[in-house]
């Protein structure tokens, strides 16, 4: 473990969360933010802007980055495959299907009227959307897992391929649903899938905080077991690791974690692939240090990427998923090029 590096990243994380508070569509002066943090903002409007919009957004940014990076890292370790990522297990397309169904049922977008549909439309869309996206995402991961274990004997490559196949299947379903709904529905779902932290509110912080921290602590505790799995299943079994149980447990935790994130923030791709690779380079490959590093680096990364999303184009917001995917894909090409050489 490279201890000085860890302290450096802890300091960087604190600085980033604090620094992220200074950027946003509304202008809040440095003194005003100082007042807001220490006592009260000078205007009650700023109180809302700072505490109900900006603070939750930065907090959610950090938690989402940390959660996605940790999920990616642990899945890569238990499947001993550097390309494993919850997104490859159909999480996003599952969430997309859930979101499409929610958009159809809860906003009156359905072209066929019925009593049940109008009853469902009375449930607030802001609750229905993340809830059904969560169910969709979770459903997708479970289907992929069942398919991989029943049909393909649980080999990692087959699992990833099953994930891709299920992703396409679910995308086709959601495209069909959007096709048969009104044209504005497609718009809503597509923009939702591009990912954004703009919806972040304080109640979501209070959901994400326990979800992320409990997952991280549990995964961290079983870090040594996951290390043993890096050398293959037989080797891990000989060290007393219940490999299948571990893998199932890790998958369920990671599925729940990413489903929560995707359900609320949409598709924010490549974080779970990119951050663990960087952390392995900088801090180390054993699972415990990797998880700690991913929390810090992933959180810092997403806080700053979200700052970019807020200020890159004036008077508009760029969906954050576009930025992470753009950076992530370039990063990946560089990584592959490095491998070739």
């Amino acid at each position: 473990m490279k201890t000085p590096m860890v302290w450096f990243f802890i300091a960087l994380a604190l600085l980033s969360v604090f620094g992220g508070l200074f950027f946003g569509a509304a202008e809040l002066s440095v003194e005003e933010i100082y007042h807001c943090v220490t006592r009260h903002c000078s205007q009650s409007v700023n109180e809302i802007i700072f505490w109900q919009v900006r603070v939750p957004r930065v907090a959610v940014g950090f938690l989402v980055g940390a959660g996605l990076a940790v999920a990616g890292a642990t899945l890569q370790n238990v499947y001993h495959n550097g390309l494993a990522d919850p997104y490859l297990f159909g999480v996003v397309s599952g969430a997309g299907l859930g979101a499409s169904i929610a958009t159809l049922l809860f906003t009156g977008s359905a072209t066929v009227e019925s009593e049940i549909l109008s009853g469902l439309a009375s449930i607030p869309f802001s609750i229905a959307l993340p809830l059904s996206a969560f169910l969709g995402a979770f459903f997708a991961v479970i289907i992929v897992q069942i398919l991989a274990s029943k049909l393909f004997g649980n080999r990692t490559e087959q699992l990833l391929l099953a994930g891709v196949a299920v992703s396409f299947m679910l995308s086709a379903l959601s495209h069909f649903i959007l096709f048969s709904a009104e044209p504005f529905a497609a718009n809503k779902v597509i923009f939702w899938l591009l990912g954004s932290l703009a919806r972040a509110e304080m109640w979501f912080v209070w959901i994400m905080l326990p979800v992320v921290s409990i997952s991280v602590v549990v995964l961290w505790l079983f870090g040594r077991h996951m290390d043993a799995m890096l050398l293959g299943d037989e080797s891990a079994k000989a060290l007393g690791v219940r490999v299948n149980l571990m893998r199932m447990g890790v998958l369920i935790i990671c599925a729940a974690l990413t489903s929560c994130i995707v359900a609320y923030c949409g598709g924010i791709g490549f974080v779970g692939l990119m951050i663990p690779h960087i952390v392995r380079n900088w801090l180390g490959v054993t699972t415990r240090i990797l998880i700690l590093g991913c929390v810090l680096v992933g959180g810092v990364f997403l806080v700053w990427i979200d700052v970019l999303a807020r200020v890159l184009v004036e008077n508009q917001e760029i969906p954050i998923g576009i930025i992470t995917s753009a950076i992530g894909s370039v990063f990946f090409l560089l990584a592959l090029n490095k491998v070739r050489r």
Partner: protein
Amino acid sequence: MSSTISYPMSTKTHTRFIIGLIFYVFFSSAWALAQTPKQQAGQLKLIALSPHLVELLYELGAQEHIIATTTSSDYPDDARHILTVGDHSRLQIEKIIQLQPDIILAWKSGNPLDDLSRLESYGLRVEYFDPKVLSDVAADIRRLGELVEKSPLAEILANQFLQRLTQITSRYSKRQAVSVFFEIWPSPLQTVSGGSWPQQQLQACGADNIIQNSTEDYPSISIEQVLTNQPQVIIQPRSERAPASAIFDWTTYPFIPAVKHHFILHPNADKMYRMTRRVLDEIDSLCQSIDQARQFYLSSK
């Protein structure tokens, strides 16, 4: 492959990237802060979140109340200079709260509803507009008139709108039907139907849409359906901003009556699709063009 992707980028490259990123963020936000919205004290402050609401406010002479809008507001030209607070996908919550509008005028079908309900939860007043039929424009004018306390003017404008609409409808809608094909999107080929906004305009002109579909407003169709139905007029609305290639080239099918007799119409899409008074100008000229075709086909029988 995966066994070796452990060392993707040198530490140096990472550091340079992160420093560059931080630098850029500071730079661009300083620039953003320099752009200050102008504030008028003591009068009603409105944020109008759709081009048609902005346009109607201008017609009511209430433009000085508008403190912000969305990126697509472009008419009249002055509207392009209004501060923008988001687009059709996302509103800038922080900025809207800071502007402290008295009323937010929202377009239910075209604005992100989650952002709007969040603004409502902060105690902001949101008024929803959702014009579906042509006469809704008059109703929206009346509602806006009440909100900006210009009801008398609004009443006059609304009545003018309805009168002119009735005039056009009564002049053309009962005449001999002309079969038309309305192309709203070339690839995939999409048309209008059901209760869609352009379909109402076709009805007002006494045109008979070759595609009848009661459940879908904007159905996708195949070219064969157009070819077999032999439309007498083809309507391809064009936007000033869009390139000419953004429409389907029907001249390769000269056996279609509309192509043979050159009745391919290109109304102004920006006016046609906007729920303001300008739509009537466009309907009027559309009806006239269709009527020319009608006279031609009647005389050539």
